[in-house]
């Protein structure tokens, strides 16, 4: 079972604010997901090459040729922006 502390840390990394009820709810749900996936650990995979993707390297389609293609352009890119200045997206002040 995931602890409440772990749930809070995950939530903070994902920039989520959870109420105490939500923390308890998600601790249960996340634990259930992990337990479900954990069933895979019962399989003997000692002879299987670890995979990071459904397709093995080389089974995937060819790589893209280095050619420029028409994008959206600034106006269409900004069409749904809540705020803009010129053709830049506007966001709250960033402090580095």
């Amino acid at each position, binding site marked *: 079972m995931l602890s409440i502390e772990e749930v809070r840390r995950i939530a903070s990394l994902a920039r989520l604010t959870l109420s105490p009820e939500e923390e308890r709810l998600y601790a249960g749900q996340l634990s259930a997901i992990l337990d479900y996936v954990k069933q895979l650990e019962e399989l003997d995979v000692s002879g299987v090459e670890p995979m990071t993707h459904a397709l093995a390297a080389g089974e995937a389609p060819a790589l893209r040729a280095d050619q420029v293609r028409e994008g959206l352009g600034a106006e269409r890119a900004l069409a749904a922006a809540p705020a803009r200045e*010129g053709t*830049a997206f*506007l966001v709250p002040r960033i402090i*580095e």
Partner: protein
Amino acid sequence: MPVADFDVVLGLEVHAQLLTRSKIFCGCPTTFGAAPNAHTCPVCLALPGALPWLNREVVELAVRTGLALGCEIQPVSVFARKNYFYPDLPKGYQISQYERPICLGGAVEFTVGGEERRVRLTRIHMEEDAGKNLHDVAPDGSSGVDLNRAGVPLLEIVSEPELRSVDEAVEYLKALRAVLVALEVNDGNLEEGSFRCDANVSVKPRGRERLGQRCEIKNMNSFRFLRQAVEFEVRRQVEVIESGGKVEQETRLFDPDRGETRAMRSKEEAHDYRYFPEPDLPPVRVEPGLIAAARGALPELPRARARRYRERLGLPAADAALIGSDPEVARFFDAAVAAGGQGAEAARRIANWLNGDVARLANESGLPPRAWKLTPGALAELVGLIEAGTVGGPGAKQALEECFRTGASPAAVVREKGLSQVSDASAVEAVVERVLAASPAEVERYRAGNAKLLGFFVGQVMKEMKGKGNPALVNAAVKKKLGGP
């Protein structure tokens, strides 16, 4: 304990923008200087449902770089998501490589203070650049975001922490940059940010085993700033230790205006990037054929070129390194030497002119070699005229400026501007006689034993001849007419 009693340990992470036409995962152009967000599409804007598609050229340039630096090219490498939130990162993660980068090992070789150094690389991996934050774009202090750079391909080249001084760090960077430029994988431009460097700095009292905690410094976009930043950071860490404190592991930003580093607010929280394999991209397979082709196409690298110039042409080490470090200048030099064909002496003269007056004219005009009107053949021709005694130093300099400006042939310029050196002994002697007749007092003093006046007479003769007298002939004629003291 003074700073000198501490050992400095540096590791560098270089981010080099790859010279591709399009971005790493989409077809948007990588060119610099467009209006904000003009070069964007659903993939690099992170619109829902858009999928990355890897640019083959990125893999080829990574392999070329890895081979040139002696890395082991990994037959299979894997992209991973590095998760963090920042306004210039629209997906909320950067696609990078983590556990399985494309290159492992390798080294960068360089010379520092006459000593040959070889600093090992940990790894090289491929990743996408983030966008750019624009500060204070609105009256209320809001920031702007430009995603033109988001998705531009980068190589991250990570050194082992084996650099022992800021001098070594600078020479390492210069050598690495020269290799990347020679390979045509990167343009080497620090100011525009296409060649960036972060430094991991730590110190320890000399002789101690254990290293102090390291700090990562960002935002050094020139060799001068790297030097300032690292020197500041070393002093700061020594002071912390001296006053009984502990250096905290943190990310610090270099502030060029104050010449200081300061902790970055945005990085205060220790990051947990939660890397995991990128599900939208299959593993990258590098076929042996690609490696063989890249190996076959490797150009001559700067240090090999400098060695050839020293050993075959007898150039001094500094001249050889200077020409060797810039592929365009090196091509020009090679072509000039080939056109001259008069051997090592001509090669040395060509190198001198190239590093001297030609470099000065190039700087003044801001033109790269490919835009010069001066051709390699013309420089060889000029050196030939000097060797034949047709033109002297001052005349050659004047002719070079004309040729650089107009692209004319040196022989024609020398002829048309009357720059050729007077090598006719009787003409020189006539001038000498006039000069001696005009300065009877000095002639008296010379003959009374003041040998230093020889230079005065030679100078007067050269002035009279507007610098066109053959210096050897002038010297001989002055001595002959004065009679030896």
